[in-house]
């Protein structure tokens, strides 16, 4: 027994020293001082190199920042892929001199419809597709009213693989954009199948950051189809809006709906897109000009080499340089379509549609921005060039949840939370002291130790301390002494039955242990469920609860027992103050 006692004591001593070492950076505010010293280039005190680099990680609700979850809209990206297949198939059919009217996609079902084939052509096309696209496409029944001879849908397995890939790419892009924007310690991770969670601590202009992350950055150059005059097109759009009672806006959703409703009235493979118009003086949106465009983009943002901000006549713009493929394609298109208009689309909205006066061979183009104050425009141009340089997102992102916390609220929260925890702990300790006398004192020492160990565990595992986490700590202290209460009540009971001090303590610990383990395990189960369920702040609560209760089994049971062992063996006490 005495040797085991020594080992236990040594373990406790080592744990305590390590714990103090781990939380020292948080106590001394080492991170801030290190940063300040680096800023002013003053040498750091010697002990900075000895201390751990990081202290306790504070959650967003305590230090301010943004937490958002974005949903990756994979649907649109899938239809882009199907478009690509369609044009590949069409090209092959034409190369093989097979008579074909068109290869197009039914957007709502992502089905490729091939029409105008004769029976020999149908057979050849089927053979080609099953040879080259067997893992991606599968034959589907041809819709009755489509007038097509063949229909192909996407294989489920391929589709889910594609969706996974899209989310992965989106994650990568978002990470690059945030890196380039410059945020200290961002956390970007994937949640479930199609969600991305982003945590940006201590950021100053949250809306701008979210804008940069969210902007699709889809740059497209499309040729304007002049087969329907602009005035007529405007009339058609107005009519559809009125008939269907559509809202007066130009969001992607509304535009998609308009296109759907105009299907059949427009040439196949064409679409309507809008250029938003502003009043030059008030900078307010006045309306929008519809354009009829060939749906397939001639040149896209993927072929960009660089994008940078320039200013001309006090108007900022983004100048674009294409890579070799882009330069060639841009040259070909502008040669073929000289005299026509070419629309420059950013995220589905036309920014400008100038007439191509002569072929452009140099691979240079520019995007002008909407109307606004100079400073706003410049900011917008900077953000746009950042987004374009990093490349387009593979799919649109929509905000699922967002939470922005200002630093002042965080500071107040910490203050109130810490004060409440300290008062709560004091009240509990006082009660224990009054009710259990010296034994209460021992339990209180264990509670303090518990607090120290929780903090050091948080620092060690770099778990995040949140405001509910602070509450969790206070709560854990209240729960940790429960173990001591159970033990002491049992000891009192045994003493009443006339047992000696040593026997009563043995029986007290022995019998209460079962109950303590059971009751802690049930609380731990709840904590784990909570951890699984919660995000952000709630997770922080679950973490402190789990860590605190686990640690309390050591501090409240084993550590206090050591004290009694010492008192009984070394001091040979015969009475317990309980």
């Amino acid at each position, binding site marked *: 027994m005495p040797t085991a006692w020594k080992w236990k004591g040594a373990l406790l001593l080592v744990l305590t020293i390590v714990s103090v070492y781990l939380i020292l950076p948080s106590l001394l505010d080492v991170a801030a001082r290190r940063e300040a010293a680096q800023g002013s280039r003053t040498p750091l005190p010697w002990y900075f190199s000895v201390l751990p680099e990081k202290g306790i990680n504070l959650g967003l609700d305590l230090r301010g920042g943004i937490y958002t979850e974005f949903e990756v809209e994979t649907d649109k990206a899938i239809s882009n892929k199907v478009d690509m297949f369609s044009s590949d198939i069409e090209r092959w059919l034409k190369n093989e001199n097979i008579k074909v009217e068109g290869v197009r996609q039914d957007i709502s079902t992502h089905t490729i419809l091939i029409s105008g084939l004769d029976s020999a052509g149908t057979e050849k096309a089927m053979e080609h597709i099953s040879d080259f696209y067997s893992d991606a496409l599968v034959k589907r029944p041809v819709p009755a009213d489509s007038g097509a001879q063949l229909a192909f849908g996407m294989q489920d397995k391929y589709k889910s693989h594609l969706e996974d890939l899209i989310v992965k790419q989106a994650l990568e892009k978002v990470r690059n954009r945030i890196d380039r924007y410059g945020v200290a310690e961002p956390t970007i991770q994937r949640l479930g199948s199609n969600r991305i969670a982003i945590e940006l601590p201590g950021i100053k202009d949250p809306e701008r950051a979210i804008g940069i992350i969210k902007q699709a950055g889809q740059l497209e150059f499309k040729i304007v189809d002049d087969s329907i005059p602009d005035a007529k097109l405007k009339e058609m759009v107005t009519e559809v809006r009125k008939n269907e009672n559509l809202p007066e806006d130009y969001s992607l959703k509304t535009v998609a709906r308009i296109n759907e409703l105009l299907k059949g009235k427009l040439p196949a493979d064409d679409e309507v897109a809008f250029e938003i118009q502003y009043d030059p003086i008030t900078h307010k949106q006045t309306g929008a000009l519809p354009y009829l465009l060939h749906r397939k983009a001639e040149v896209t943002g993927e072929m960009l080499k660089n994008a940078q901000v320039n200013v001309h006549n006090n108007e900022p713009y983004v100048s674009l340089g294409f890579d070799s493929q882009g330069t060639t394609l841009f040259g070909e298109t502008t040669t073929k379509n000289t005299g026509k208009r070419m629309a420059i689309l950013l995220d589905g909205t036309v920014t400008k549609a100038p007439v191509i006066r002569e072929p452009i061979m140099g691979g240079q183009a520019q995007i002008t921005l909407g109307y606004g104050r100079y400073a706003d425009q410049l900011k917008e141009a900077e953000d746009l060039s950042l987004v374009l340089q990093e490349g387009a997102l593979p799919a649109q992102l929509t905000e699922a*949840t967002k939470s922005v916390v200002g630093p002042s609220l965080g500071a107040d929260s910490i203050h109130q939370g810490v004060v409440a925890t300290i008062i709560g702990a004091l009240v509990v300790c006082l009660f224990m002291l009054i009710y259990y006398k010296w034994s209460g004192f021992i339990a209180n020492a264990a509670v303090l130790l518990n607090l120290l160990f929780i903090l050091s565990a948080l620092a060690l595992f770099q778990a995040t301390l949140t405001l509910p986490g602070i509450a969790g700590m206070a709560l854990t202290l209240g729960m940790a002494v429960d173990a001591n209460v159970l033990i002491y009540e049992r000891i009192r009971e045994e003493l009443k039955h006339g047992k000696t001090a040593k026997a009563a303590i043995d029986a007290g610990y022995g019998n209460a242990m079962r109950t303590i383990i059971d009751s802690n395990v049930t609380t731990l189960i709840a904590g784990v469920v909570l951890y699984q369920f919660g995000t952000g702040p709630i997770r922080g609560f679950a973490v402190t609860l789990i860590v605190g209760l686990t640690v309390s089994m050591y501090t409240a049971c084993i550590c206090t027992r050591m004290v009694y062992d010492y008192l009984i063996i070394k001091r040979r006490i015969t009475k317990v103050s309980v």
Partner: protein
Amino acid sequence: MKTTHIPFIKYQALFVGVSFLLFFIAIYIMATKGLNYGIDFKGGAKLTYKFADPTHEGQVRKALEGTEFVDASVVRFGEPAENRMSIKVALPEEHAKIGEQITAALEKSFGAGKILLEQEESVGPRVGKEMRKKAWLAIIFSWAMMLIYIGYRFDFLYGPGAVLSLVHDTTITMGIFALLGKEVNLTILAAILTLIGYSINDTIVVFDRIRENRSRINLDTIKDVVNESINSTLSRTIITSLTVFFVVVVLFFKGGGTLHDFAFTMIIGVIIGTYSSIFVASPCYIVLYKYWPSVKKLWSKR
């Protein structure tokens, strides 16, 4: 504390009746009045502003008149001295600029620089619904886990009583939330799940003592043994609850806006949880002990 000799079990029918009544009233209130879900579970946006000058809800509501956010709910956040207000609005389809619009409206009434947007949270309606479903699943899942754990550690006659008292505690706590129209959000869910893990502890203490005395239990003595077990553990049941109760009361008064409702839930839960371990869980064990053999016999006859 001296060992008491309170005849709890003698009046068990009365207490069980009261519990049943409370339980169904809680369900009735939840069904008719509904729970006031926060944006976490409903979708919407919540903005917390700090005002430079003392203000009250009416002024803020007035400032929002004439905007599209007239229906917003405005409540004080934290202590009156903090001058903080939370504004909660339903989320329109395009919700990127809600913060800017409300800030602009408030600045017009209170003056630029007099208000500060400190916290902004928004949750899409789809996500909110999903979270609500997941929250109920989490609650039910933890009930099930408790049933399994108690069944494994004790025996299956104890499990139903423990879980029934948990269902009782959770339902009544949420009924009180529905009655008071208090907001149910993620933090409240955290409190409820914690309660599920914690309020079972008192039950475990009593059950543990019953199990210790099981050699003396038979059909004639069960009531006395259970009553004696409750009495002999009464002091620890109360004191363990008290220590946590102290902490949550301090959090309630001193913890600030976010922790206020969390602490409120815990306060109610700790009280009901202590009550139910004596007046719900133990009677349930007696009933199961008495009638299980005959149920089993009936079963084997068929």
